[in-house]
């Protein structure tokens, strides 16, 4: 009898130990983005922000559930969809349940399809796809699925907010649209044309132009056309060196009005624009940095700077992604059952430390959030970019932008 009790006690103990060992295992998040090649700096900066976000928001707070910590594992996809699918398989084989990715909608499209297929075929090792930056509207429309959540506003939502501000500005009567000659540049142009036409029919679009992507040496001739058209404002979706070249050229060659952009800050661009673009460049983004949304966000930014003195938090949605994931895991009571976690994420309302409410729209898994339009300046800047004195200061905010925007998503739930 005594023996049996002993045996029972030992086995019970070992079970408990075994269970806690299983519980104490980290929640791993696979970060699949470019860590080498021409877009490596964007990817690496994103990884740094993710690593800091899990430490600051989860691990330093004692973890989730029974003290489980989170860990971000970097996978280099060289910004290739094919490579991403290989890395996805590696991540799944390592038992990772959460995939984050953002650079290039082409990659996101490949991943969301592959994940949908994988989850249907392997109900035991399902994964969730948390998209923090790929803004192709199709991902939450025709190509939506239950496993994909987008934490950035899509290109249409951003243009909707941008055109709200442009339409409300009485001094803007003529607009020039210019962009890179590929799908995103065309999407920006189409959305701008459509939305400006609806919101402000008497506004004149004096130029609508696409230039070869990454090949233009000197933007002066384009800048001349912008000036000659008599435009009051310019809209562009350009990024990288195309953004800097176009912006600098337009300003240097005598254009006086504002330039409305998506990606004209950070990655060296803010420092390179410097004084020349002061009060000229306007940027649409979620998450305000100047003024900062809360004391907690201030702490977050300062502790990030301690770790990466030359870095920028230019994707504050990464913190929302981690915050909401942690919240969903707590609500579901498990990190292993991703269906429960996804159900908790759906229609979650979350208070962002960057200010404003977030709402994960259940119909299409598109996060609805405040959109901010900021201006490039060195006044009232608490957190500048690129170790310069310049940063982006919020000028106007559109609350819960495009809350009721239509979606063609028909989601099948497991």
């Amino acid at each position, binding site marked *: 009898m005594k023996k049996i009790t002993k045996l029972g006690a030992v086995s019970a103990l070992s079970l408990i130990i075994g269970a806690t060992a299983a519980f104490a295992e980290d929640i791993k998040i696979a970060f699949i983005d470019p860590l080498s090649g021409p877009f490596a700096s964007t990817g690496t900066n994103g990884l740094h922000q993710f690593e800091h976000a899990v430490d600051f928001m989860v691990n330093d707070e004692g973890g989730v559930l029974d003290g489980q910590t989170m860990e971000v594992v970097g996978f280099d996809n060289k910004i290739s969809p094919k490579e991403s699918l290989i890395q996805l398989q590696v991540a799944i084989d390592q038992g990772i349940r959460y995939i984050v990715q953002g650079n290039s909608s082409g990659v996101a499209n490949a991943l969301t399809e592959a994940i949908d297929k994988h989850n249907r075929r392997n109900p035991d090792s399902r994964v969730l796809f948390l998209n923090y930056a790929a803004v192709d509207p199709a991902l939450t429309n025709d190509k939506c699925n239950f496993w994909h959540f987008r934490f950035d506003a899509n290109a249409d939502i951003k243009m909707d907010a941008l055109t709200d501000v442009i339409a409300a500005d009485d001094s803007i009567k003529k607009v020039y649209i210019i962009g890179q000659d590929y799908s995103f540049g065309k999407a920006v142009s189409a959305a701008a044309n459509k939305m400006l036409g609806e919101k402000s029919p008497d506004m004149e679009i004096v130029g609508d132009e696409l230039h*070869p992507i*990454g090949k233009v040496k000197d933007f002066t*001739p384009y800048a001349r056309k912008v000036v000659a058209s008599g435009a009051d404002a310019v809209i562009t979706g350009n990024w990288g060196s195309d953004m800097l070249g176009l912006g600098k050229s337009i300003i*240097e060659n005598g254009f006086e009005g504002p330039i409305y952009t998506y990606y004209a800050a950070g990655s060296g661009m803010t420092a*390179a624009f*410097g004084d020349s673009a002061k009060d000229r460049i306007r940027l649409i983004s979620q998450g305000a940095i100047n003024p900062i949304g809360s004391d907690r966000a201030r702490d977050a930014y300062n502790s990030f700077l301690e770790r990466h003195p030359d870095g920028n938090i230019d994707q504050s949605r990464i913190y929302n992604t981690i915050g909401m994931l942690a919240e969903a895991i707590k609500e579901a009571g498990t990190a292993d059952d991703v269906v429960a976690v996804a159900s908790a994420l759906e229609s979650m309302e979350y208070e962002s430390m960057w200010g404003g409410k977030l709402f994960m729209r259940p119909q299409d898994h598109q996060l609805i959030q405040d959109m901010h339009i900021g201006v490039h300046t060195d006044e009232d800047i608490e957190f500048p970019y690129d170790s310069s004195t310049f940063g982006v200061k919020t000028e106007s905010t559109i609350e819960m932008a495009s809350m009721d925007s239509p979606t063609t998503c028909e989601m099948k739930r497991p």
Partner: protein
Amino acid sequence: MELILVNLIDGLVTGLLLFMLSAGLTLIFSMMGVLNFAHASFYMLGAYFAYSISLAVGFWMGLLIAPLIVGLLGAGVERYGLRRVHQYGHVPELIFTFGLALLIEELVQFIWGKNQMPYDVPDVLNFTAFAIAGNSIPAYKIFMIFISVSIFIGLLYILTKTRVGMIIQAALSYPRTVEALGHNVPLIFMGVFGVGTALAGVAGVIAGPVLGTFPGMAFVLGSIVFVTIVIGGLGSLWGALVASLLIGWITTFAKSYNIAMSDILNGIGISTPENMSEHPLRDLWTVTSPQIADILPYILMVLILIFRPAGLFGKRES
């Protein structure tokens, strides 16, 4: 009318910048018979060096020192790299410069990172020189024209009026004879290579603030430099100048005016097909001049090669 004048000035700036790059390359090419694929990389190095120097001692010292360092580096590459590879023939030389270009790009990314550098126009020149019908011409552009023209005149003077120039010109065509006369031909080669890369460095120093200083800057300009020297004719300074200006103006005007191909085709009497969306030549009909502006120099090069294989001012016939 005013816009034409503005475009002439813009094209002149682009062309002269191209000239500074191609002048060095054309000399090196005609001497060694080797396309230096790394030439545009020296241009990039010029911009990066000047940026780093300008942080410490200002733009003007950068303009002075950076090309010097680039020139020394170039001379070193010739002395310790190309000269050794040379004995194995032209193909290894070509591969050597190709590898060098990749190496320099990786090095630049390693040292300065992949971001854009905040290399800016100096404050003294940061104003509008004058405006033509609302189009401002920045003072910096006038400065660029001034520098390029002085370099052209200087080079022309050295090559045609001085003893050094005569030896160089002779060494271009008859290296063995020049050597037999007691001149140190390898040293001349090293000097020309150094000066050529230093010229590319100058171009980088003054182009960096306007065209952007980033790891891809060499790649963007790389091929157009070769086109320039082929059009101009190998080894000819005048050829390099004329070809550079031609390319500068052609691309600037093509980008400035939205000339549609359909207008041209209509103009020569071909009528637009009615159902465009199904037409096999749809892309040809809808193309506009800004879209093809950057390939016009290549078309020009092909035409030149067909009708005048030695280039506009090329002398060497083999």
